[in-house]
């Protein structure tokens, strides 16, 4: 039996009270939020901050950004018991409609490399009003020696590779990385057919 995939449709402008209720102040509590780690989760605490920008460079205020990453040792979370033990959820979700600059800001620990020869990364799903299908991208971290040899980065045209590298942007709150998602334009973010 071979069934055909159900088509994608846009998430639309009104997902906030269904998918991100806690963040936006609606009654249904969120299952996932921008916190991937607890205060006692092992690893180096970082924030990943950015905006989703449209083809005219304007910040998008109704995008839904989801990220997934391994823990600081490069292990992917597999069970609820593991989440309870370390406080590391491995997955975060945030809409871009609550901050004045329409940023997303994930609070997590820096991922470890998931496999030998790979650079540390986080996976990203981008969707929004005006996208009929979601897009996949990846966040790599500036200054990682393994970026030079990572096979996925190597498969990306060299002139576009920089769109996948989050830049250090520490502030008074601590370690931070900046990762803007450009939907279009000369620096359009690399999206993957994953």
């Amino acid at each position: 039996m071979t069934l055909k995939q159900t088509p994608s449709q846009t998430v639309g402008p009104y997902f906030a009270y269904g998918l991100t209720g806690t963040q936006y102040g609606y009654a249904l509590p969120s299952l996932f939020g921008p916190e991937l780690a607890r205060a006692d989760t092992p690893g180096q605490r970082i924030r990943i901050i950015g905006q989703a920008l449209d083809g005219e460079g304007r910040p998008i205020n109704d995008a839904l950004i989801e990220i997934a990453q391994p823990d600081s040792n490069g292990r992917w979370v597999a069970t609820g018991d593991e989440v309870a033990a370390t406080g590391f959820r491995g997955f975060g979700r945030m809409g871009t409609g609550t901050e004045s600059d329409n940023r997303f800001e994930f609070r997590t620990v820096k991922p470890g490399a998931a496999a030998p020869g790979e650079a540390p990364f986080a996976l990203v799903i981008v969707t929004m009003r005006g996208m009929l299908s979601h897009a996949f991208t990846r966040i790599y971290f500036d200054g990682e020696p393994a970026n030079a040899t990572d096979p996925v980065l190597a498969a990306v045209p060299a002139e576009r590779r920089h769109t996948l590298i989050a830049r250090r942007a520490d502030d008074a709150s601590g370690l931070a990385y900046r990762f803007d998602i450009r939907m279009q334009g000369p620096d359009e973010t690399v999206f993957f057919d994953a």
Partner: protein
Amino acid sequence: MTSDQRLGPRDWASHPAYIHPPYKSTVLRGPTKPLVPLKPALAELAAPVYGHDDLGPLDHDLTRNARRNGEPLGERIIVTGRVLDEGGRPVTNTLVEIWQANAAGRYVHKVDQHDAPLDANFLGAGRCLTDSEGRYRFMTIKPGAYPWGNHPNAWRPNHIHFSLFGQHFASRLVTQMYFPGDPLLALDPIFQGTPEQARERLISRFTLDVTEPDFALGYEFDIVLRGARETPMER
């Protein structure tokens, strides 16, 4: 969060293109450069971890999960179906999240300024996990049509938004379920942005088998996610 399974590809003959000019917001928001192929490493990663404990007892019943002083107004409906992969295997214990307008065509969302009444007893959001046969079931109110600014006199057909992961991060699906016989479907650039041969898959089926006598009409909507390949992939 890893498995030995390799996912089949996203079937682009089933999904809308990123840029579909009749749906105006796509023009500045859809990626324009070719997607970069990724080896199946991503496909091995499982969906986010969640459990039954995370869900409230009324999360699946939108006619009850936001009551303040009575029942929500509108036509009570049951929406149920199975989540399957392309091989017809049930996707069990997987999260299904939904949100929708109320019977008058108004969303609770603060940004929705459509001049139609809110319903104090209806939020319009819910979720559940599929059972051992991949089946989900929601009780809700039939959503109304509503106008939007895409073009003059534009109206969205009645629809319910669905969000699923399935068993893999890469089997993510965000979609909308429509209702049979809706005259607005032919005029809707979001529905029409879907490849023609795939559109019917977005329309639910009315059936007395699911309808509860003297209580609620029943609609069935099966959802098919990307599935593991039938044969081992070459490395």
